[in-house]
């Protein structure tokens, strides 16, 4: 696959002298539609099998939120030829382990082992794809239902500010939009999930033609290819996943919400709709986040934390998903500081960037940081941050597994003006402003905020 080499569209002040970032891979597709990518990296004697199913919480139905993630848990509870618990036991005997994660758009599974456990890892992962339902029972669903509810308690209810993103999502996206609810789901929906739901979901989405497989590490390419063909090749193709027409979400106006929580410090969340992952201006928004926050002399940090000392911390980030994205600015106030005071400074700084492009060095700082981060991404193969998962991610979002250089080129091609244009386009008055304040301190919230009612 040829890499597209983009000429540098603007002369950087000090471009890093780095060779092109590229990951060699071999790609083929099985008759049943499974897309397979192999990558050899023998720096340590370990292997990883990284499988993406192209389904996430965005495919759930109202009343069954949290289901894709609950299903993810069930993928470790045994399959046709693997007794309950054996996947973990057998992988630990091989110095490895298994994990998975669920987003709005996809569910990924990482099956890791020392190099001598490669065929075992492939067998375990393939057996789930082939025959999960042979081992599934209402009891296994019940067991993981309790575990997932405790995962939710640990990450949401029992964490300070833990309900923020659930409230932001339900407000940014209308009911019926697949990003309206959090991936963890509502407690009552987790209770309602049934064994029949599991059967239907597996048959609809957990098919070789709705998945992609990356095998990476200390592997022999030819042998690995033979094993992949042997273990995955006979799994029957499934139906094509149903089409999912999704209207682009918009906000009519600003929504101001307040939530009281058991916290010491007030915190302000500002959220806007923004480009989807890899859509035009996605990189500009990511760079904009970097110019605003993420270091001592980034604009918001310098004003709020360094100069004025009215905030304990401030962060900004662009989070692009498949269908749309969100841009967040989050600032934690110092004790007793009114969030209106924080918001006024943020508004000033955004207006300044909209009116005048950042200087070249400000942008270059961010781009250089992104560039250095790409090298870090090449060091490991496994887990959710390694090359295997990155290859699968690029394939899913762009159709090109080795998209490293193209991804980086998006940032190298940015001109300062692009950041101002993106700020003008996306950072409008139509946004969600959520104030989370200590119990009884609603006065510290943005003026005219309505009480938030978490739906999930």
């Amino acid at each position, binding site marked *: *696959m040829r890499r597209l080499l983009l000429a540098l569209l603007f002369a950087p002040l000090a471009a*890093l002298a*780095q060779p092109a970032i590229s990951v060699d891979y*071999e*790609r*083929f*597709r*099985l008759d049943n539609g499974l*897309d397979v990518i192999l990558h050899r990296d023998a*720096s*340590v*004697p*370990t292997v990883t099998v990284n499988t993406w199913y192209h389904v996430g919480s965005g*495919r759930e139905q109202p009343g069954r939120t949290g289901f894709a993630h609950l299903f993810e848990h069930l993928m470790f509870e045994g399959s*046709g*030829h693997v007794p309950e*618990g054996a996947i973990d*036991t057998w992988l*630990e*005997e*091989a*110095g*490895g382990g298994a994990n998975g994660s669920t987003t709005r758009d996809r569910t990924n599974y990482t099956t890791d082992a*020392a190099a*001598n456990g490669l065929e*075992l890892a492939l*067998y375990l992962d393939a*057996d789930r794809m082939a025959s999960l339902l042979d081992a599934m029972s209402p009891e296994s669903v019940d067991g993981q*239902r*309790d*575990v997932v509810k*405790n995962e939710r*308690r640990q990450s949401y*209810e*029992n964490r300070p500010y833990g309900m923020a993103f659930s409230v932001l999502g339900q407000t940014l996206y209308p009911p019926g939009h697949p990003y309206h609810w959090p991936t963890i789901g509502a407690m009552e929906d987790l209770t309602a999930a049934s064994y029949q739901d599991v059967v239907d979901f597996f048959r609809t989405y957990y098919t070789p033609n*709705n998945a992609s497989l990356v095998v990476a590490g200390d592997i022999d390419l030819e042998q690995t290819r033979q094993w992949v*063909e*042997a273990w995955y*090749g*006979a799994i029957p193709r499934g139906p094509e996943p149903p089409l*999912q027409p*999704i209207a682009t979400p918009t906000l009519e106006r600003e929504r101001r919400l307040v939530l009281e929580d*058991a*916290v*010491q410090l007030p915190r302000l969340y500002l959220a806007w709709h923004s480009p989807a992952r890899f859509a035009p201006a996605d990189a500009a928004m990511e760079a904009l986040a970097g110019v605003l926050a993420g270091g001592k*002399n980034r604009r918001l940090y*310098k004003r709020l934390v*360094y100069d004025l000392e009215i905030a304990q911390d401030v962060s900004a980030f662009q989070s692009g998903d498949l*269908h749309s994205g969100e841009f967040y600015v989050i600032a934690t106030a*110092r*004790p007793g500081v009114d969030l209106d005071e924080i918001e006024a400074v943020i508004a000033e700084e955004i207006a300044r960037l909209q009116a005048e492009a950042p200087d070249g060095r400000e942008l270059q700082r961010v781009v*250089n940081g992104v*560039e*250095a981060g790409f090298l*870090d991404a090449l*060091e490991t*193969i496994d887990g959710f941050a390694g090359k295997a998962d990155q290859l699968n991610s690029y394939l899913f979002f*762009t*159709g*090109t597994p080795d998209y490293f250089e193209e991804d980086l080129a998006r940032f190298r091609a940015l001109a300062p003006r692009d950041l101002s244009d993106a700020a003008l386009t996306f950072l409008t008055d139509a946004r969600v402003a959520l104030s989370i304040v200590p119990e009884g301190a609603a006065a510290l919230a943005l003026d005219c905020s309505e009480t938030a009612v978490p739906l999930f």
Partner: protein
Amino acid sequence: MRALLLALLLAGPAVAQPAAPNWDTRPALAEAPAFAPPLPAGHSLSNGLPVLFVQKPGVPLAQINLLVKTGSVDDGDLDGLADFAADMMDEGAGEYSALDLADAVDFLGISLGTGAGLHSLSVQLHAPLSKLDEGLALMADVALRPTFPEADLERVRTSRITALEQRRDEPRAVAGVALAQALYGDDHPYGRLGLGEPATVTAISRADLVAFHERVLRPGNAALVVVGAVDWAGLQPKLEAAFGAAAWPAAEAVPGVTVPDAPQVGPRSVTLIDKPGAAQSVVRIGRIGAARSTPDYYALEVLNTILGGSFTSRLNQNLRERNGYAYGARSTFEYRPAAGPFIAYADVQTDVTAPALAEFFNEFEAIAEDVPSSELAKARDYLALSFPEPFATVSGTAAMVGSLWLYGLPPDTYAEYTTGVQAVTASDLARVAHEYVDPERVDVIVVGDRAAIEADVRALDLGPVTTLTIADVLGPAAE
């Protein structure tokens, strides 16, 4: 819209469908792969500063860690001093103001961090090779020439005190403070976590920070760990220029505190800390464990893997998989120069707090009985075969190499790891289980909704129950 945007052109031809494999027999493991952990080359600079060097081909990155053998245990009355000093070292150094330094680091795309541990202070540079020279110069400024500017110091002080107040929001942080207190008490350096308290952080002066830096940053008290795709001949002059005698005159270490082993905790007791309305109870069960130098190190590694060190460990299988009480349950031995804690822990659903506690003790009892040979073999193989993992990255390699130096262990220690783990027998396991996991001599900490859980916890009759508020643990909240 299709969820998948696949290119239609595939890189390879379609593959013929193979014969169906035999699913009834799982693939056997091939012979364990050979792995030789890197053995650092030992060098030293003109001022005697030891350099532990590992040439790691591959990604063009370098990790350079300056390690100092003094940390929070030397804080004395100025609790929080080492951590505060480390925090300040990149707030202005050499010719750079705090903002200029941040700008320079940002612009290079490097990361330059400072930190303190109980027994160490570190300055860590992570850089693309193309930025190594500039990165080293900045690193030397931060390590050797921090300026501790007054205005920045006050800003950081306020920030640190605010962060200490924020611990009230975090039941895990509250539990951590309470457990260290319960296990080690006020008179032992391990009774504190190194962050200090609002009062001590308020009391620390600029002169204290400067004096601390002067006292501990000496070549005789430090070492450089260098890992990267570089050769020694090219690197040596650069290290010499940044950290050699011209920049950093030779000086012997000033002796610090020798941390004694703490006495084992008394009969089992429970401390219940109220967090009204909490959806989960944060459970921490601890006792005094072992030092890194213990001859039982490999046996304890295997023991803990079985008890709570991996996904299939008994605590996790019991509390998560079998009972659904928690998202996960684990245990750990924190090996330090002196005996660190053994801690078993989980965040459990509020209404099953008592039965969850009971299961912890069931597992403590059971681990002292015979462990099936298959379970022992699994734990040994898991440790031995997963051992190479941290060596995939320059930062992981540097951390592994550096910890041996900090603990005063020989640099070839890792060469014995696999053999040491595989040699652990069932009788070794039984012996260390009895000695190190005594369920009668533990401190139990629970941070949760007292109104919902107290009666059930008392009914377990684990031992005397003390009830506290978060303010009892962290001090009264700031006005």
